[in-house]
């Protein structure tokens, strides 16, 4: 079963790139949103996560703040 994964990031943040690379390495498809060019989505990220740091991952409505490998794996069932 494929989970819906969204990554909120900025292009200049190293942990965002690491998180996306980790998903790619594990063959996980995801939508990548650059919140630095999309104000509406930036607000959506803040509303969902209650904070303003990137990256934020939305894995089937489970919100993971930061590149927290352990929680990402659990949420994806890897």
């Amino acid at each position, binding site marked *: 079963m494929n989970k819906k994964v969204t990554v909120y990031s*900025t292009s*200049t*943040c*190293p*942990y*965002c*790139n690491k998180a996306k690379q980790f998903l790619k390495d594990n063959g996980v498809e995801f939508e990548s949103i650059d*919140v*630095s*060019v999309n*104000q509406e989505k*930036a607000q959506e990220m*803040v509303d969902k996560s*209650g*904070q*303003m*740091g*990137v990256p934020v991952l939305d894995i089937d409505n489970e919100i993971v*703040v930061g590149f927290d*490998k352990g929680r990402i794996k659990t949420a994806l069932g890897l």
Partner: protein
Amino acid sequence: MSDIYDLIIIGAGPAGITAGVYAARKKMNLLIITKDIGGQAAWSGDVENYTGYQFITGPELAEKFEEHMRKYGIKVRDNEEAKDIRREGNLVIVKTDLDTYRARAVIVASGKRSRELGVEGEKEFKNKGVTFCATCDGPLFSGKEVAVIGGGNSALDAALQMMEISPKVYIINITSELTGDPIMIEKIKGSPRVEIWNNSRVKSIYGDSFVKGMKIEKEGKEYDLKVKGIFVEIGLIPNSEFASSLERNKGGEIVVDCYNHTNVEGIFSAGDVTNVPEKQIIIACGEGSKASLAAFKYLSTHRF
């Protein structure tokens, strides 16, 4: 208790990774223990003074370092933090938050981290308006009034970035003048959006779910600044608390000689965590290679 390693390297920034590459080529039985990979290099903006690359971004350079390290199949314990290191008999014992390790030699290359203000509200509002990485989180404050704390190059860097996207950028600087590069100061002073507060310090940060403002003290008077974002850029402190068995200078940096020896036999140190002058990626790499070669010499001339 684990095996006895020839060498344990603490940290995987430019110094630790370079030390690791040199040690791997000497076929040492090697372990790297680190909180993260890439260190401060991964957080740097544009790098234009690393020989061989006329231009590369910090994250890209850090990725190249990691690739180089992976090529040698070096054993890495990532997301693990050293808590204590000391010599016992002829071995060095490294305690982390997860385990205890033994080695014949250790290189401490744990780098530096952002200094915190230490004021009320700072911890509470971290990532809720207070940020230590303008490069990462800056764009989230587009259209909002913000403050940059500090007066050196990293503070000016943050201010330059934010004055493009914020209606108002306050610079809160504790000294009487900004201390960064003149070329940056000139640009900043030319922007009508920037307001510089010298001789000023942050007293506290307040808000509800997110930051709403902060209290500033300037020349004995208290002021209230309504800002949504606070970028703390007040310098760095060495990650050396766990190395209390080693000689450190007043600023907490580990004292080394020109062969990267610390005051304790078998323990070496390299990079930004040491008292070596000038904190630069290329210097950290050079120091890492030197420390590794010194450790190799130590191992081959001592009986264990």
